[in-house]
């Protein structure tokens, strides 16, 4: 019986250390796998019998994980993804705005007003008059190019939103599927560490797309909540789609469109915020500026007299738009386009810069119009045209700059958190190799004990 116990302990020990070596080898083979969470073998002594120890047993294989660090990483990952995409899109907007350069709006606005200044030196010059029309058209085209650029970026954002919503749905379906597999595996008393790693990776990836909160229920399933709307759990995976309400892009549940996600992070937030708020705001500020230029130029121009044609000058002619039958100015600024009066485009003599009738050498209003670029304008909150434009540029530049700094700070934080995660959950080859030696030695020693037990048996058999 005594020798049998020895054999029994030895065999159990060999089996235990073999299992321990399996876990260690799994750790070693996954040392380069960033998604992998290291596993630790928990050994304990076998229940004693009659005061004598019965050897060792593998009590558990533990997944070494720090949930707090994981949730922090997801939080900052979400913010980083938002800032990253925001910065990329704003970079596209930045190339549309093209400031500071000779192709920016400021250049064309200045050029337009400077051309009025030049007309003051020779008010009846047909060449200088044609130049004003050309500069006005170029300024108008540049405004249009900027507006078109914004619209094209918005259209891309719309497509990207649909694609991102699809990715969110796929991710939620996968998490739901993994929740079920983990539940089934653990119900059978098996270790589901690898499946949990996959689920964690999927949740991490989802956090880059949209702001989420994750809790674990009593069945061990991850319950995902997306901005206040249920995302996935053990039983169901919700599906989302993009809806537009009053020009605002919303992520809503496909089954209940009133369940709108409160976006605050991830790529989806960047897409939605830029599409619904930021781009329309930049566009409307620029439209307002263009409208003020149109109105102010018209206010002065309509008071002026054209070059005398057959001895008569015309007056009350708008530079932008046309005069309607009721005397009002129409079609001066339509769909982002400043439209120069066709009678001026066709015949620049109709530019009206004289403050007196049939006074072709009078360029008083050309000077007034040139001065407009340096005058504080009430409609622009007392700013000059350039200052108002600089204000718009400043808002935009600060937003892009803020995104870039957020990327930098988030990268730093995520790096620190990733280091913490790698320190806590990562595989150390030194540690694992030490374990290999330790477990191998224990296994060898146990094998030796079998031989000792065998020799003891042989000794007893030799006595017979």
């Amino acid at each position, binding site marked *: 019986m005594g020798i049998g116990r020895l054999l029994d302990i030895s065999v159990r020990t060999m089996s235990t250390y073999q299992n321990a070596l399996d876990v260690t080898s799994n750790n070693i083979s996954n040392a380069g796998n960033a998604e992998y969470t290291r596993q630790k073998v928990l050994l304990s002594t076998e229940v004693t019998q009659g005061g004598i120890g019965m050897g060792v047993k593998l009590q558990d294989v533990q997944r070494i994980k720090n949930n707090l660090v994981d949730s922090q990483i997801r939080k900052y990952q979400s913010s980083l993804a938002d800032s990253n995409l925001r910065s990329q899109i704003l970079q596209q907007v930045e190339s549309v705005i093209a400031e500071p350069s000779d192709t920016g709006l400021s250049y064309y606005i200045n050029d337009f007003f400077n051309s009025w200044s030049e007309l*003051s*030196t020779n008010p009846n010059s047909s060449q200088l008059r044609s130049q004003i029309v050309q500069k006005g058209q170029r300024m108008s085209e540049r405004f249009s190019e900027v507006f078109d650029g914004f619209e094209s970026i918005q259209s891309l954002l719309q497509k990207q939103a649909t694609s991102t919503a699809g990715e969110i749905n796929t991710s939620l379906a996968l998490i739901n599927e993994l929740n079920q597999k983990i539940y089934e595996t653990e119900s059978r008393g098996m270790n589901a560490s690898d499946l949990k790693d996959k689920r964690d990776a999927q949740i991490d990836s989802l956090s880059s797309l949209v702001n989420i909160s994750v809790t674990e229920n009593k069945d061990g399933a991850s319950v995902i909540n997306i901005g206040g709307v249920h995302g996935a759990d053990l039983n169901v995976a919700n599906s989302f789609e993009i809806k537009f309400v009053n020009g605002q892009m919303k992520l809503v549940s496909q089954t209940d469109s009133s369940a709108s996600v409160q976006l605050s992070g991830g790529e989806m937030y960047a897409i939605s915020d830029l599409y619904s708020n930021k781009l329309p705001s930049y566009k409307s500020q620029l439209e307002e500026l263009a409208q003020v230029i149109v109105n102010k130029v018209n206010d002065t121009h309509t008071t002026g007299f054209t070059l005398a044609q057959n001895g008569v000058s015309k007056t009350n002619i708008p530079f932008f738009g046309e005069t309607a039958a009721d005397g009002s100015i129409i079609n001066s600024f339509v769909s982002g386009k400043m439209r120069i009066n066709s009678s001026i485009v066709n015949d620049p003599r109709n530019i009206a810069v004289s403050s007196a009738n049939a006074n072709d050498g009078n360029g008083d209003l050309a000077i007034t119009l040139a001065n407009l670029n*340096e005058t504080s304008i009430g409609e622009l909150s007392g700013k000059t045209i350039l200052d108002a434009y600089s204000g718009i540029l400043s808002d935009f*530049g600060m937003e892009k700059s803020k995104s870039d700094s957020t990327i930098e700070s988030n990268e730093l934080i995520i790096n620190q958190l990733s280091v913490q995660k*790698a320190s806590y959950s990562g595989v150390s080859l030194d540690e694992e190799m030490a374990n290999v030696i330790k477990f191998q030695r224990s296994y060898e020693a146990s094998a030796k004990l079998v031989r000792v037990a065998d020799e003891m048996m042989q000794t007893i058999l030799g006595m017979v």
Partner: protein
Amino acid sequence: MRVTEGVITEKYIFNQNRINQKMLELQSQLTSNKKVENLSDNVGAALDIVSLDSKLNKFDSYKKNIDNAKNFINSSINSFDNAISNMEQIIQKVETMDDAINKENYPTIIKSIKDSVESIVRSLNEKHNGMYLFGGTNYSQEPFSFDADGKIVLNSADAGGELKVKVGSNFTETINISGDKINNSGLISSLNAIMDKLNNGEAPTKVLKDTFTEGYNGFLALQTQNGEKINRLDDIGLLLENNTTNTQNLLVDKQAIDPAKLIVDLQYQDYLLQMSNKLSATILPKSLLDYI
């Protein structure tokens, strides 16, 4: 802290990425020769550049206006010179009429004086780039002509218009001598009075000659105004040149790179990169595994 291979790799990649980003930024500045390429590179500096560029554009426009204005005034001066030369000839010829021996030459002298008067009127009707130099702002007709009695008349009732040119921010200069001013100098009326006498075959009286000399002096005073305008425009042009130079210097401060400094910075980042690579090559693969 438990240092795993993952910790070392994470740190290495993060630092490597930062060095690469810095190198990319430096390379971009070197190749574009600009410190600020986009708004977000430095919002404050970018807005300053927009504002400075705008100032430079305006200065260029003012300088162009000054050049045009000076051309106009120089044309005025040339016309004035021509008119003055003819006036001096008139003074000289009128003086010869006082000499009794020239009495028989009166018809020739009178014709010569009339030619000079016509030449003066032609000078006063000169144009520059389609603009009557002395017609005020009314270009519908020649400012001066002869009436049926052969007297010089100012044609327009509004020949007093000023041709103003923008030469600075909210700052204009009047560049023309209007027909009204010439008319008010006394020159035209004194010329007409002399012509009256000549048409009667008489020599102008001393009073008439003195009045004409006064008109001539008044005309000279207007020419002096032209000279003063040129001088003032030259001064403004000089001021604009200085302002342009200062603004360009400010722009260079905001925009231009220091290639030497950037290259040294780039070299430093390259050292860091090499050092990081070397250290990583030494540390990363080493573990107990290498010694078993």
